[in-house]
């Protein structure tokens, strides 16, 4: 009997993440300054997208590198006292920078180009051929679908252990159901024992 492979169906519900766009002409130092000027409760987008077709590879790599440099400089300057006691809570902790995403057209990468982009500090995503528009909402919608919630969140727990402390704990609740034998599984195990070792079958 062959193993029946169960595949998790890819339910591409869009992943809830805020996404912005960086248009050509934007200066990374300015974007970084804006990031630090926001109040603590007004975080910017979690990810920002730069399109390689819009920017050109060299400009894009330069922008990404300068953004990271600028962020690190401001991070140090804004936490000067905390560098000695780095874990003291501060009233305004430095903002978390967005993830930098570079979208590229299919077939334009050759190993080296995306290596330059990732070495600069950005993630490369290849656009689907149908996505022609650079409208941020189109790109954002597509990125959210690409990420899909199954990439970040684990499957729903099948059992919750009883931690009330009343009576013996349900140890079985910690065990993934794939390790719990059903009657069918047990019958199959018995059957395996009766099947000849494949290397002992005579020629």
């Amino acid at each position, binding site marked *: 009997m062959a193993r029946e*492979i169960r595949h998790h169906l890819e339910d591409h519900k869009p992943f809830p993440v805020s996404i912005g766009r960086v248009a050509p002409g934007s200066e990374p130092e300015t974007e970084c300054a804006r990031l630090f000027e926001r109040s603590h409760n007004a975080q910017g987008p979690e990810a920002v997208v730069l399109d390689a077709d819009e920017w050109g590879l060299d400009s894009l790599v330069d922008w990404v590198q300068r953004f990271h440099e600028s962020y690190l400089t401001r991070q140090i300057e804004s936490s000067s006292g905390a560098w000695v006691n780095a874990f003291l*809570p501060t009233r305004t902790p430095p903002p978390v920078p967005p993830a930098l995403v570079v979208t590229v057209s299919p077939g334009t990468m050759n190993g*080296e180009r995306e290596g330059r*982009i990732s070495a600069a500090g950005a993630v490369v*995503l290849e656009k689907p051929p149908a996505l022609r528009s650079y409208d941020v909402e189109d790109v954002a919608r597509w990125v959210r679908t690409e990420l899909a919630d199954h*990439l970040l969140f684990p499957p729903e727990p099948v059992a919750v252990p009883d931690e009330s402390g009343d009576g013996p704990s349900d140890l079985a609740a910690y065990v993934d159901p*794939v*390790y719990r034998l059903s009657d069918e599984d047990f019958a199959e195990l018995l059957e395996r024992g009766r099947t000849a070792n494949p290397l002992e079958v005579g020629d």
Partner: protein
Amino acid sequence: MADPFLLAHLVNPLFVDIGGRLAPISIRDQMVRARMAVDRALLERLIGSSRPLLVIGAGAAGATAAIHAAARGVPTLLIEAAPAPFLRQAGCLTRWVDPVQYDWPVDHWQAGHYPWVPPPMPLPWRAGPANRIALAWTLALNRARRRYPRLLVLYRTTVSGTPTPVGNLLHVTIATRARLFSRSFGLALSCVGAGTEISTHGNYAGLDFWSTDPFQTLTLGDRVLISGGGDGALQDYLRVITHERSAETIYSRLGIPIGIEGFLQSAEDQANRVYVWGSEARHDHDALLRLHQIHQDLASRLLPGPGSGKPPIPGLLSALGALTASAPDTQLLYPCAHFSRCYGLNRFLVLLLATYLERYRGKTTLLPGRNLGSVTGVGHICSQSPAVCSGQLHDVQASPASDCRTSKRPPAPASPLGTFDVVIVRHGIKAPPPLFAGARPVQQPRQVLPYHVA
């Protein structure tokens, strides 16, 4: 410190290294080590609310350790030399990453997700392309930074000099943006990583392991040479031959009887028990050779050949035929009579496919006992740049390799192997430089890790 896991990875007082040359080395294995290290350090009271943790390296292991510790109230500093996290995977559009693929044939492999109920890993994932996983992890790390204010992350930052124990703390000097500052930690955990995959040979530079590559689009008429006998080479052999993204995808189409899996799991377990106590080829050779022969014998029985008079397993021939319908002319060259230590699923599938191609299509794809010789550009001069060599023809020579137990090469000269459209070099991993002067090596680099993390 009395914890056996921490002691096994201790390279200096209060300095634990879970990067470096360890085995097994999949992303999932690295994350398991990271979580275990933090859990054990908490139990040992080496880290806690008043004893910060330093994590070096913001890859999968480092981010796992940092988030896991911060979620438990440990002030944590995560430093990374690069400008952003997960850069190995961030630019790779074609490498498929699956957290449980190489747990085959253990039961939870079929389920396709981690074998434990929550609390989950800090960076959980299901299978996907490397670049998308890198983005998802980056978002998860950033969300953790917002959630835990005492999780501090610094990029372009490294350790300077040698960490020094002072009392029951570790004094570390940290260098960032041409500035130095010093801080004491309860523990330092290095997750710098296993090193760099070797993808060059002489002046020839093939595509890196984590580069975007065209391997799944090569087809009939292309001539492909893959040099190497480890997981990297075997993965690429499978992708080139079948155009499928992963070993799991290939296996799911074959209908292999479950009894076969159990038998192979036993063989793998026996070889692993030898391998765990080895450190060099002379320790490993016999066990790896026997394992290779078991897999090959099984493949031969599953595919007895058209003239044998024995039927193969129903559906297997048609599945293999469909998988290899557009396979390019491919050869896998490796130095000994066996593959290197590698995951069982890769070993089984490569030998099964190679046996099918040889017995039913008349194509020999495996070249054991050979070393890669010269790789010379046709119409161009190789200059250690993938951009120069990629997409170009190369003349390749190979020489007979000696038994892996000896480093002596036999006197026979190299001979021409042919001209190839693509040459893929997967010659192991170049170890990273020492973390600092005086760092001891990890005492038990070859390991058996748990599947379940409580």
